[in-house]
């Protein structure tokens, strides 16, 4: 934190921060500026993502989605936010008033504190903690405290159900999440987010996900358990709307309700950023070494772009999963965790260990194996595109006969 502030200060005023006289005041000012910037980013990301998710969900469901407020409905999230802010803040009659009011703040702070350790590009991170990954997991667990408080204090049985499910879910899934990151930490030798990215390369076969079959398994496990931590379908048990009405936030309204979905969508960034920084190479720009990257401002912005694109792709996949899959049952959720994810993780940790000993990262054989793994991944993508083509052409002619229109309507074409 101090170093970053110093760097920025030198960049702005050409003198080190210590020599300016009011060093403490400058530090506090920087803290507030950075916190404000992060909050601004997180809140806006949550809003815009909510809009984009609705549009993508609409296209998956052959609908159009919100397109009325602003050009192409881009201001829909602002309208929704204002509407919720203007609504009456209802508190149920026999609710625990204090806990009910306080719960959203826990959810809010738990998630937004995670942004402190998340990187956005080379050197662009609020605080490059040496326990970065550990910190993120610890602090996001605070969310569940808020959810339990909200669910319990609502004095509603549905909300209580949601809270209990959330507790069970977080307790179970903390373990595979942490275990599935151990291979990465072993490969890097550090918990710092920046160091993890620096240990990888810009090209796909230099990413950790293709390091060995074991890290690939760990990547899948990490992705699944991150979904569970973020309460996304198929693990949205705490607010399963078809079972528990609306789960832990059944009784909330107005601004206090707004906090919950906002935190959920902000959490989407945390999930996606964690996945992309640990396994998908983070902000590493292809064909550019870290030394050259640190020297040029343009390349640093390029690294930010790379990171944002990677994260966005992961966000998109998480969204699409939500609109494809049904929800698991609560006992299946824990069963999946303890009988599949955790054993897979344990095997993968040992496997990675042995793999590291036999094929060290720098050797030619290791590179060849990484290329092979990348080849398998590429073949998988190729097969995926084939299936998409098959589904598209499956009913093309019949559709043209029925509707007298071509079914082709690409995603970038707006209604």
């Amino acid at each position: 934190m101090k170093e970053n502030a110093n760097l920025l200060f030198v960049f702005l005023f050409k003198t080190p921060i210590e020599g300016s006289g009011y060093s403490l005041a400058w530090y506090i000012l920087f803290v507030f500026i950075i916190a404000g910037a992060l909050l601004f980013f997180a809140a806006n990301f949550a809003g815009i993502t909510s809009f984009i998710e609705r549009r993508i969900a609409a296209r998956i469901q052959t609908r159009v989605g919100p397109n009325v407020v602003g050009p192409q409905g881009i201001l829909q999230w602002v309208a929704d936010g204002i509407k919720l802010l203007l609504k009456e803040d209802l508190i149920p009659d026999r609710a625990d008033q204090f806990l009910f009011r306080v719960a959203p703040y826990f959810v809010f702070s738990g998630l937004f504190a995670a942004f402190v350790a998340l990187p956005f590009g080379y050197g662009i991170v609020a605080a490059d903690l040496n326990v970065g990954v550990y910190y993120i997991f610890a602090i996001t667990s605070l969310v569940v405290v808020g959810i339990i408080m909200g669910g319990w204090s609502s004095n509603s049985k549905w909300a209580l159900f949601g809270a209990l499910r959330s507790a069970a879910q977080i307790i179970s899934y903390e373990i595979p999440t942490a275990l599935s990151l151990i291979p990465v930490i072993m490969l890097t030798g550090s918990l710092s987010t920046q160091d993890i990215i620096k240990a990888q390369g810009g090209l796909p076969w230099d990413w950790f996900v293709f390091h060995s079959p074991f890290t690939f398994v760990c990547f899948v496990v990490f992705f699944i358990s991150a979904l569970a931590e973020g309460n996304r379908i198929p693990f949205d048990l705490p607010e399963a709307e078809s079972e528990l009405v609306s789960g832990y936030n059944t009784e909330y309204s107005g601004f206090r309700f707004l906090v919950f979905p906002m935190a959920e969508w902000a959490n989407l960034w945390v999930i996606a950023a964690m996945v992309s920084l640990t396994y998908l190479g983070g902000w590493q720009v292809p064909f550019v070494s870290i030394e050259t990257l640190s020297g040029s401002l343009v390349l640093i912005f390029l690294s930010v772009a790379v990171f944002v694109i990677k994260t966005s792709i992961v966000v998109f996949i998480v969204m699409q999963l939500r609109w494809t899959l049904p929800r698991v049952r609560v006992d299946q959720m824990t069963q999946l965790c303890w009988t599949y994810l955790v054993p897979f993780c344990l095997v993968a940790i040992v496997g990675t260990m042995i793999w590291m000993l036999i094929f060290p990262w720098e050797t030619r054989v290791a590179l060849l194996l990484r290329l092979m793994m990348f080849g398998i991944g590429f073949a998988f993508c190729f097969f995926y595109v084939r299936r998409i083509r098959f589904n598209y052409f499956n009913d093309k002619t019949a559709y043209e006969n029925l509707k007298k229109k071509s079914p082709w309507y690409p995603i970038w074409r707006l209604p």
Partner: protein
Amino acid sequence: MTPYFNAVATTLYSIFEGMAVTTSYLFRRPSTIQYPNKLEKPLEEQLSDRYRGILQVDTSVCIGCRICEKTCPIDCIAINLEKNKETKERFLTRFDIDISKCMFCGLCSENCSTCAIYHTKFFNGATQNVDELVVRFVDSPIVLYKHRKDSDPKTREKDLSGVIVKQKMVKQRMKKQKTAKQEMPVNKISKHKIKEEIL
């Protein structure tokens, strides 16, 4: 051990297949009709000619047989006929349809021998007051239609967009608003009186 790994494999494969289906929909045409302001073509063209919308009466061809009134299962049609004793001409003095009661079953229009009563394609007749939905098609007495040999009223072109019914409803609404402004207290008393009479 095999069922264990089989379960993993089938789960991953089925999710893969599902994702392929949903991705393919990102490249397919949405099926939404963006009613009411972004329609590709006017709604009237999208509805079929048999569409059973709000009823309309062409009083100029009504023969006053009252079949529609009798067949209606919920009594939403009311007809009054009068006879001039001197000229022996029969008049239609009242033809009211309570659209708020009507369930659009088509029994009345089906039995009409001259197609005087028929369903239009007009359907969005929402108002703020239920009483306004009683459409009165006769303003002044109308001489009843008599069958002539040269023309068959069934084959005439029907006004499916519901111009008459729309006009009547707008007119009635204006009238109601005017009278409501003028006779606000009177209205209330009369309503009260009616209730007392019932009780």
